[in-house]
């Protein structure tokens, strides 16, 4: 089992990623992923079922605990970029797992042993959004990245614009278009 990340480690990783070390981003991603899983697991236990995770809140929580001591915009940007990707993966894995449980459930009687986060159409949406995002990324990676930052890490337009090195006005236009485009795609594919 991975030991919990401590603040100093993360600061070093962030700095390495910032200085262009190609392996550093991957290590940062792994570290943030593990940390988010841990925070998410703890929250699930604490909040029990019925309350689902709010990804942006989790990312913020992880950031405040781990990285708020790390100075500089660059660090923040790398952290959130990694966290958004990690969050996306966590949610998608989670939704897939739960969907397969539901399929296999059959005549299952109500028991508590499988207590998890609740089901709902949220699963379908997460998976559909993920698929649509992948599609979008193939044609317009910048739009997909923007959506990932906003949607899974809760970044503001301004921060996302800085992270992607575009103007806030462009980010705003991109966001409006991407959101409508994704919604249309998800709506079209949603099982009825």
């Amino acid at each position, binding site marked *: 089992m991975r030991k919990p990340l401590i603040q100093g480690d993360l600061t070093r990783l962030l700095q390495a990623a910032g200085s262009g070390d190609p392996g550093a981003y991957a290590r940062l991603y792994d570290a943030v992923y593990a940390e988010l899983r841990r925070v998410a697991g703890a929250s699930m236990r604490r909040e029990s079922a019925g309350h689902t995770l*709010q990804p942006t809140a989790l990312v913020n929580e992880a950031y405040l605990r781990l990285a708020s001591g790390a100075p500089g915009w660059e660090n923040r940007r790398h952290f959130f970029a990694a966290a958004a990707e990690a969050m996306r993966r966590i949610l998608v894995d989670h939704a897939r797992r739960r969907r397969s449980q539901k399929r296999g459930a059959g005549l299952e009687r109500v028991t508590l042993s499988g207590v998890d986060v609740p089901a709902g159409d949220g699963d379908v949406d997460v998976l559909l959004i993920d698929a649509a995002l992948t599609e979008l990324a193939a044609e317009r990676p910048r739009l997909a990245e923007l959506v990932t930052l906003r949607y899974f890490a*809760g970044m503001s337009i301004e921060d996302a614009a800085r992270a992607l090195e575009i103007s806030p006005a462009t980010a705003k236009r991109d966001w409006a278009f991407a*959101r409508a485009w994704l919604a249309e795609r998800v709506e079209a594919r949603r099982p009825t």
Partner: protein
Amino acid sequence: MSLDAEQALFDACLAADAAGRERLLTGCADAALAARVRRLLEIHEQEPPSLSIGVENLSPLAMPKRIGRYRILERIGEGAMGDVFLAEQQEPVRRRVALKVLKFGLGTREVIARFELERQALAVLTHPNIAGILDAGATEDGRPYFAMEYVGGIAITRYCDERRLPLEGRLGLFAQVCAGVQHAHLRGIIHRDLKPSNILVTEIDGAPACRIIDFGIAKATTTAGAETDAYTRIGHVLGTPDYMSPEQAQLSPLEIDARTDVYSLGIVLYELLTGARPYSVTRDAIVPETLAREIAEAEPLRPSLRAAEAGADAARRAARRGLAPRALAQRLRGDLDWIVLKAIEKDRNRRYASAHELADDLERHARSEAVLAGPPSWTYRSGRFVRRHRFAAAAAAGLFLSAILFGAGMAWLARETAQERDRANAEAEIAKRVTAFTAGLFEMANPESAGASDVTARELLDGGVRRLETELLRERPEVRAALLEAAGSAYRGIGEHGEASRLIGQAVALRRERGAAEPLPLAQALLAESALRRDQGNFEGAAELAREAVQALERALAAAGSGGETEVARTLAVARLDLAEILRRSSALDEASALAVKTLEGLEKSGATGTPEFVYATHTLGRVRAAQDRLGEAEDLLRRAHAMQLATGGGNTERAIETRNGLADVLVLTGRPAEAESLLRQNLESVRVVYGERHGQYGVAWNNLGNAISDIPEKFGEAEQAYLKALEPLSAMYGLAHPEIATTYNNLGALYLKTREWQKAAQAYQRSLELREQLLGPAHAYTAGTKLGYALALNRLGRAAEAERLLREVHAMLSDSIGPAHSRTVNAQYYLGVILKEQGKTAEALSVVREARQRLERALGADHPRTLAAQKTLDELEGK
């Protein structure tokens, strides 16, 4: 098609005005591209729905640090609409505010737009009894919020009870509330959601002061017009429907006006005065139709009568007002009764026109002047009664006829069994009297009110009972007993258990006085009362009465010697089978089985095969075998019973319907739901023919159909519909509180657990639990079962502490009633363990689950899925 081209056109359109946009789109050479962009623009205008749903499902977890220009200090409330935070505003002035952050899905843009429309009006609300709204906006993740003056008070009802305020103090506070509401009404603002939790009391220099909060919020969050369905309106806007006016609850609501607030004020006043609400409203929005009907039809109990109710609860409520229940009732009787009832009139034209008028009438009462309100006229009330009871009354007509026949039959029976000459004369006299009496009823029922025959039948019953209890008081006890029993059974038939119980109880008392001399009528009366108790779910009482009947008949038969009276023997068979049926339902299966076997064998020996009693015996033994898990035998017996019923032309009888229910149960248990479903659909048709679509039995049939298909995931939707359909005739016939209604809500809850709709599950279970606690008592096994389901739903909703507390209660209750080793008790114990485990209370979880596992193994075997599940949980706890 390139996304770049799409976005370019999309961006251009967004930047253009409406006319420019249209030019761009129509001028586009690529028609497909234009169409796609049109669609995207549409989605953009509506706020992309699917994305917001995706986020909606991810409800708040961490407390935000900051919302808009407010710094969040703490969470002070969580409601149906969202969360309330205490926050601090730093600029332009530093002050504390309450921030109400709404849930997702309420359409942020719309909410804020509607709020903006009201903003100017709200700005002029400056009144000491109103907490003003300061601001509205959207959080970063797109949820609407409202900022309002922070009031650190507590709900008015709680304040009054905690301070044990006498009525004068309560009325004084209520006058402040009226003043605040009136201030808003004069400025054209309706609150729409007045309830105690929106009326807070703080103390200023030791004197209590009311502040009404949330003015303007309900309006902003209620979508106008037809596009909102009732679910949304009831579910989203109001946490509780208890204070909702009939016009708000309507499926197509009228324009709301000041009188809507008057109604809510009336309910609050009722609660302040009595400590209870005028009627209980289903605490859910599962069936808006039902809710609308309940609110429109529930007849409020007069405050003074509510106060005069018997019981510790009423005494406690009165004590909080510094009075004994009788003194409180005395104080409320008259003016205050009429004032409250006028405020909560269903027809808003009959209500006070304004809060001011209501306050004035209270003021007049305080000065001992004549009040505007007065008792409603009799014609008005009876008109309301007829409207409410139309369906029940139609059923009563048929039942009453059979009750009359039953009464006449009793007299005939008495004559048949009479042995002495003078007694025969006496019985003939009884028969004559009974006939005269019933004929008298029909004379009474010869009204000018043509076309209202269904209604008069019910009134007949009421009129007959009045006569029984007055004019006929000096009648012979046998006559009165026969009539009381007949009338009681008729009331039982229309689900009026209270009245039925009173009348049959009197009949039994009369029969008991002469029990030794006339065992048969005594037994009949006892069986009637037993059937009533069974209907009420009181199996213990039902069994006791049936037992008494059995014993009386056994004694009579023994006294008569061999070849004794056939009528007594037949009634004894029925009494034993009734008893067996009750014992089966209270899970005393060994005794039930012994009784059924004994009866069946006795009937076979005496050559009574093919009689109705023999069919009943076959049916009863079949159901007992099913309960004993001897499903093969059960199926065989029930099929035989059913074949005999069909052969004797009795496919559409109450008993045949019961037999099909039993058979369907067996089929479900043995994995043949399709056949069960077809039988139950047949039943539905039989019930419709026999009882009609408005009869409670029709509801029971839908409920049973729901049960049969509720295990088939593809049919969950159908099962839900079946349960909802069950509720309609049940509540039409039985009113709001009946064991069958509780059963259907319970099953609905179980279904929602399967579909993982935790909120709905909790609501359905809660409703069932309230009814079962009230009707069956808190210690009943059914009540415990419902509480278990409720706890599971609450746990899924994150209310683990409550779930834990409930499960502890369930476990204790079942340990007491059916013993700690019973599989159902152990089941509850296991769930308790699981919830403890989830909460990280590992040590206790370990000991609870370990014991549960052992007991499950003993009760169900080591390979049973439940045992295995417990083992798995245990392994996890032990860290294996």
